[in-house]
């Protein structure tokens, strides 16, 4: 039994890992296509039908690029930086509940690698570690642009993590649990948290943009003023890792948003269709991925719509608007819970 359990979890972990990587790969393609469509262009369409092989070509190109490590850089940290980014980006996928439970050969298999009872906290902790990859890489490059990018990244992360946490506190006060699985299960059917916490969701998604370093908060890369930001000195697959980590983060944030606010693998009328447990689970997984794709699309949509903030505006928004508003949200939620006794 114990062996079987380990086997299940290993398989799920590997599949989740592979899917994460696959989706991150194809996000790069989707991003270019979305950008192109929004600008009335065609986008990559040469590699394979509709350019479907473009990510492979990109990866191949990255591998064959000349690898340059600056003379004056701290070599060890320089190499380990992208690795940390990638590692932390991938670590979060463990606690995400990809689906309900499957019944195979009389056993219940939960489609989640680890149901930590502090899943939300875990994601938070790992995501905050992600900034070390950027910070270390930017510092080790020994280049003022990289350093500026890294400093911006870390201050931005700290500022926005606060309001992100506060937005989540309101949610957790409502759900009364930190386990992602339980939070998702509470949103059975159409009982999604976004209907109770629309404002919290808005705060959360804005902070998620900032945490992923996506436009309009992509100040750490900021081509216009910082050359390439923290990865100015990087080349070859190390640069690829940084970019890839960004896409994985985007995917994980989307998954996180979908499970916290949009019901994860729950879908409307899941009970009234009269389907078997397994069928519901499988449809649920698809629904969950649909939600994730939608959020990834929103990430891209925003990116190709609005320009980036100025740095002082970013800080002002973070500290003078987001945090007070998030606190207000916590307060109002608390008040409502107190008054309704629920």
């Amino acid at each position, binding site marked *: 039994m114990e062996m079987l359990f380990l086997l299940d979890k290993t398989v799920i972990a590997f599949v989740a890992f592979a899917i994460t990587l696959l989706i991150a790969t194809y996000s790069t393609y989707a991003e270019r296509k979305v950008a192109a*469509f*929004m*600008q*009335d*262009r*065609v986008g990559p369409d040469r590699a394979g039908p509709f350019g479907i092989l473009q990510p492979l070509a990109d990866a191949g190109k990255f591998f064959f690029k000349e690898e340059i490590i600056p003379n004056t850089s701290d070599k060890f940290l320089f190499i380990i930086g992208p690795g940390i980014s990638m590692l932390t980006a991938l670590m979060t996928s463990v606690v995400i509940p990809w689906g309900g439970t499957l019944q195979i050969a009389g056993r219940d298999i939960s489609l989640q690698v680890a149901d930590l009872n502090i899943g939300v906290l875990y994601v938070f902790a790992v995501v905050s570690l992600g900034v070390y990859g950027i910070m270390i890489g930017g510092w080790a490059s020994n280049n003022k642009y990289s350093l500026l990018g890294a400093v911006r990244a870390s201050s931005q992360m700290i500022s926005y993590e606060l309001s992100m946490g506060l937005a989540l506190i309101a949610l957790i006060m409502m759900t009364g649990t930190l386990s992602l699985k339980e939070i998702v299960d509470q949103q059975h059917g159409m009982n999604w948290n976004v209907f109770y916490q629309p404002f919290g969701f808005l705060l959360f998604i804005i902070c998620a943009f900032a945490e992923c370093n996506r436009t309009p908060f992509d100040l750490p890369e900021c081509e216009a003023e910082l050359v390439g930001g923290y990865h100015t000195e990087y080349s070859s697959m190390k640069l690829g890792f940084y970019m890839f980590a960004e896409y994985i983060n985007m995917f994980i944030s989307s998954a996180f948003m979908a499970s916290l606010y949009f019901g994860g693998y729950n879908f409307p009328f899941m009970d009234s269709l009269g389907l078997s447990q397994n069928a519901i689970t499988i449809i649920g997984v698809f629904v969950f991925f649909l939600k994730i794709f939608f959020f990834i699309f929103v990430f891209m*949509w925003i990116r*190709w*719509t*609005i320009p980036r903030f100025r740095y002082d505006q970013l800080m002002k928004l973070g500290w003078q608007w987001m945090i007070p508003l998030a606190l207000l949200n916590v307060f109002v939620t608390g008040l409502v819970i107190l008054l309704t006794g629920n």
Partner: protein
Amino acid sequence: MQLTNRSKVVSDKNMTAMEAAYLPAVIKGMAVTLKHFFMRPATTKYPEQTREFSEVYRGRHVLKRDEKGAERCTACGLCAVSCPAEAITMVAAERKKGEEGLYREEKYAAIYEINMLRCIFCGLCEEACPKQAIFLTKEIAPASYEREDFIWGKDRLVEGVEETKRIDITKRQDR
């Protein structure tokens, strides 16, 4: 003078609460990009599709022959002198007896080369030519991986003798 009626007066007045909230503007912007998402791309997929060129498009050159099929160029060098990009070089030679069918004048260009990487397709060479020997055409000088391929000699510049291989430049002449 007012060119369009879309111009807006710029002012630095304070933002209204609606504008300062930022989100309505973001949503408006997102509506615009979403509209464009479903619009038809303006792209011409080049090697498979080509845009239509104007009749007097200034593309790659052609060295003309006369009605009998003799090369018109007399290697006077005026095109090379007029060329602002110094793209044309030539070596002149004297016509031998019996070559009257090949070259119209007594002096002709034994080597005539245009460097298509230097050429800016200004068309001054065709204006300078006293013999109406060189013209620009509607065709594009094709891309290549090698620099040598862009130095076009007479083999590629001179049009064919046969009626079908002649390149029509009448549209350029009655400009």
